[in-house]
């Protein structure tokens, strides 16, 4: 990993949506600290604000109130282009439905984030992409990602998230569309990324097989973290 994971600190965070019925508080977290290299699981019923939490700490949504700080940098005050660059290099994102580009090969999918930055893909990045795919055991020579199994597709998505070697990985239900075996592999990978490589890994999941691997968990319920409104989460 090219840089030490930054510490996450959330203060007084509120995300309020305007619904027909009036304002809905989707997320309300007075204090949350996550030390570098943590492996953290978030569970909670549907609609409890889990995804909202991930988007907020990734700087993808502007909270109604409060701030999110990574390694001392306040996301809310970063100019947008700087924040985009920061996100590319700091945070890897994995989704339940992979969101790969079916027209592109596995390798091209992994390299896609490189096109956000440069005109051409550097040899170093290409080698890194191949290394990641090989490391995850993906048959990457297939013409299109749709030729891959779902587990393989999620591993391509993981490789894509890790292209720029981000110190933080956020995963939203990464195993929900996988069968038990594929889910197990992805879970193992996520665990390794934190425990062996020192990344901060925050996983939103309902999957007991995944959650049970992760020691630190917290539960969101109607936007509130349980059991305490304030929790110190240290590895």
């Amino acid at each position, binding site marked *: 990993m090219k840089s030490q994971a930054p510490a996450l600190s959330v203060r007084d965070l509120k995300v309020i949506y305007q619904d027909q019925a009036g304002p809905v508080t989707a997320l309300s977290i007075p204090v949350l600290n996550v030390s570098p290299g943590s492996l953290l699981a978030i569970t909670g019923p549907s609609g409890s604000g889990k995804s909202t939490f991930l*988007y907020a700490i990734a700087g*993808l949504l502007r909270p109604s109130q409060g701030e999110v700080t990574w390694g001392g940098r306040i996301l809310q005050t970063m100019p947008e282009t700087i924040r*985009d*660059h920061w996100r590319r290099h700091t945070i890897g994102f994995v989704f339940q439905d992979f969101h790969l580009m079916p027209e592109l090969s596995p390798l091209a999918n992994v390299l896609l984030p490189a096109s956000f930055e440069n*005109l051409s893909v550097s040899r170093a990045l290409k080698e890194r992409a191949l290394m990641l795919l090989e490391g995850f055991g993906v048959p990457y020579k297939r013409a299109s990602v749709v030729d891959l199994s779902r587990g393989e597709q999620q591993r391509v998505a993981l490789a894509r998230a890790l292209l720029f070697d981000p110190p933080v990985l956020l995963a939203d239900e990464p195993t929900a569309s996988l069968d038990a075996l594929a889910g197990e592999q992805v879970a193992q990978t996520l665990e390794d990324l934190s425990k062996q490589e020192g990344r901060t890994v925050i996983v939103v999941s309902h999957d007991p097989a995944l959650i049970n691997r992760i020691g630190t968990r917290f539960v969101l319920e109607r936007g509130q973290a349980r059991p305490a409104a304030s929790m110190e989460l240290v590895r």
Partner: protein
Amino acid sequence: MNPLPMIIATIRRHLWTYLLFTLVVAIATGIGVAITSQEAALRKGSARAADKFDLIIAAPGSQTDVVLEAIYLRPGTVPLLDPAMTAQALNDQRAKIASPIGFGDSIKGSPIVGTTPDFATYLSGNWAQGRVFQSETEAVIGSAVRLKMGDKFRPSHGMAHTGHDADDDHDEEQHNVDLHVVGRMNPTGTPWDNAVIVPIELIWRVHGLPTGHAPDSQQIGRPYDPARVPGVPAIVMHPDSINAAYGLRNVYRTPVSMAFFPAEVLVKLYDVLGDVRTIMNWLAMATQGLVVLSMLAGVVAILSLHRRQFAVLRALGAPKAYIFFCVWGQVVFIAVLGALLGLLLGSGIAIIVSMVFTNSTGISLPAIIGADEYWLVAGMIVFGLVAATLPAFLAYRYPVIESLRAG
């Protein structure tokens, strides 16, 4: 930043739809290109066909009719010029060339036109084959006439058009004259390419008219005997200088004759055409604009399917500008490819129309794609580049989170 991989991937995903858009843009552009190029070609072609007809003297009447008949060899019925006036004009030394134009029958679909060796030579420049006619039994042919050097033919029964219903009591002997082809003209890009050109004296003779010379004379060309010159539909003059041309025009503006520059008649015609052209240009542009707009509507519809994907790209760290250019690039692809294909298509249409037109009129239309057409295509492309910012901006503004949740 290089949104190309995404642009290509998206185009591939909707390949047929995008090709259809491109085709529609190409057709709209092509029609525009063909219309402007052919309109310009029609001017150039018709003007060039009239190039060597500096000044025309004819009986008073419609100048346009005379131009159509004498220059473009369209059959018509212009009245004959007064014989005395004809003789005076033909012998006028102020004109380097003064030639009658009279019509005979046709052979193998080519009209037989009577004139003087001077004018035939002037029209042809030098000769592609052979030489100009030197007697009443010789003829020269335009470059497209389906006869060969040395071919013999008979200016057969009843000449088609003499300008009036001559009392055709000419005797059979005169009719049975055998003509043979002694020269072929260079291509002129005018209806004369399809003409068989003979001495005017022969035309007069087969119509039983005096031949402009003593009855037993075989002379052709100037000088003419004023007492023996019949009327002709038109006389074409080639004066030495512009001054001489204006002078001659004044001389032959009389109660029994009119004198005019065909170029001026064409300019008047083009004036009328010009208004039509403006309207057509606006129509062509409006069509293209509409096509681009409907294409944009289609793209916007397709893009709304991609909102989620754009949100994912943003979550992966893509800058907003990347999203903008992804969409912009797709529309630009359609606009640029469509416009360039349209240029090809338009050239193709123009060439075909030119060929058909040349075949039926003899006027060669230079189906040239010139500055106007390039401007049209460039305008289409610029319009596409600008119009593309619309859906691009829409995509740029998609809220990431709502799009990520959607679906």
